[in-house]
């Protein structure tokens, strides 16, 4: 299935109709989730209204980390099977993941001020998430430099795999270390967020995830189109 999709023509045939569906479904779900989170849920007993930032912060954290999982997975796929599409996928995911990692840091900071009494502390979760954001920036710079110099993308792919060292650290920082950041609220089967406040979160998580996928497909199609243009120009120049 993945091998079949590695063919750019077949990929484009599927991606073209899928892009607007993912994008607009994502926008609709995220907007509905945000509306519900702002108006349809009760305020928290301790945090009061500032709890509502959760509906953006949690999807942002999920996509910030999920994005790097995608970069690392695609990079590994590129290193092993040398599918050019895997390289394009990794490069397309990175900026979207970086945006959500930044959004996670910013919303967390805004939430931290009234809740903890500080905008920023160098605790394990906050610091490792900031490092992940820097790793995204480094990957984007490295991938761009590599392609400018006509590299085959192996160096950024190695960096993409190596960068996943941060993922377990971000995830388990609150378990293994004393941190100011609270532990995980949502598990696979249970949640310490009351049901009346939890449900819009699923809409924003789902919505932002579809939006993320739509944006990644858009970027992949744009990169494939650029490559096609460059190849055609080269052929015309050679003639």
């Amino acid at each position, binding site marked *: 299935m993945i091998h079949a999709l590695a063919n750019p023509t077949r990929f484009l045939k599927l991606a073209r109709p899928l892009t607007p569906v993912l994008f607009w479904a994502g926008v609709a779900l995220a907007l509905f989730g945000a509306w519900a989170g702002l108006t349809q849920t009760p305020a928290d*007993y301790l945090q009061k209204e500032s709890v509502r930032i959760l509906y953006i912060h949690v999807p942002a954290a999920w996509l910030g980390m999920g994005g790097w999982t995608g970069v690392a997975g695609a990079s590994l796929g590129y290193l092993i099977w040398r599918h050019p599409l895997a390289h394009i996928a990794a490069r397309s995911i990175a900026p979207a993941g970086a945006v959500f990692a930044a959004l996670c840091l910013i919303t967390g900071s805004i939430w931290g001020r009234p809740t*903890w*009494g500080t905008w920023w502390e160098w605790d394990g979760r906050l610091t490792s998430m900031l490092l992940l954001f820097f790793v995204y920036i480094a990957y984007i710079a490295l991938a761009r430099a590599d392609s400018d110099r006509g590299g085959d993308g192996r160096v950024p792919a190695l960096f993409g795999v190596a960068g996943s*060292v941060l993922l377990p650290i971000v995830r388990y920082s609150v378990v293994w270390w004393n941190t*100011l950041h*609270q*532990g995980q609220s949502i598990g696979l089967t249970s949640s310490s*967020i009351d049901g*009346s406040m939890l449900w819009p979160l699923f809409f924003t998580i789902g919505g932002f995830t579809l939006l993320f996928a739509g944006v990644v497909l858009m970027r992949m199609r744009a990169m494939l189109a650029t490559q096609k243009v460059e190849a055609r120009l080269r052929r015309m120049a050679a003639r």
Partner: protein
Amino acid sequence: MKPKHQRLVLGLLALGAVLGASGLALSALRDEAAFFYAPGDVAGKPLPLGKAVRLGGMVEQGSIARQPDGLSIAFVVTDGKARVPVAFRGVAPDLFKEGSGVVAEGKFNPDGSFTADNLLAKHDERYMPPQVAGNMHKSETLDK
């Protein structure tokens, strides 16, 4: 072995090494990366005197005492294993309550007590509306 399979094995080994490195970093930094000391961490051990540290735990029920000057607060931080009396002078965050989490920044005194110059409220992972929280979590607050 075909080159593709060789790369697959190498790739999986690399992934394993990366995850192993991550586990090593997590366990090696366990003490270094701790954001705060829990009272149980310092009980029975030499106190980290003379340097700025953080002390974190729960504010013991019934332990908050406002001093007559209106600014100073005394309370006890506990983690169930040990308790440390804390003195603080300044403005406490809104979420600073008995029975909820706190991180105090300051220094240990030779007698085992702690003098804080800043307080951070630590929120736990439970989120609920006031009706659900009910009387269970209606703890004493400073502005009572």
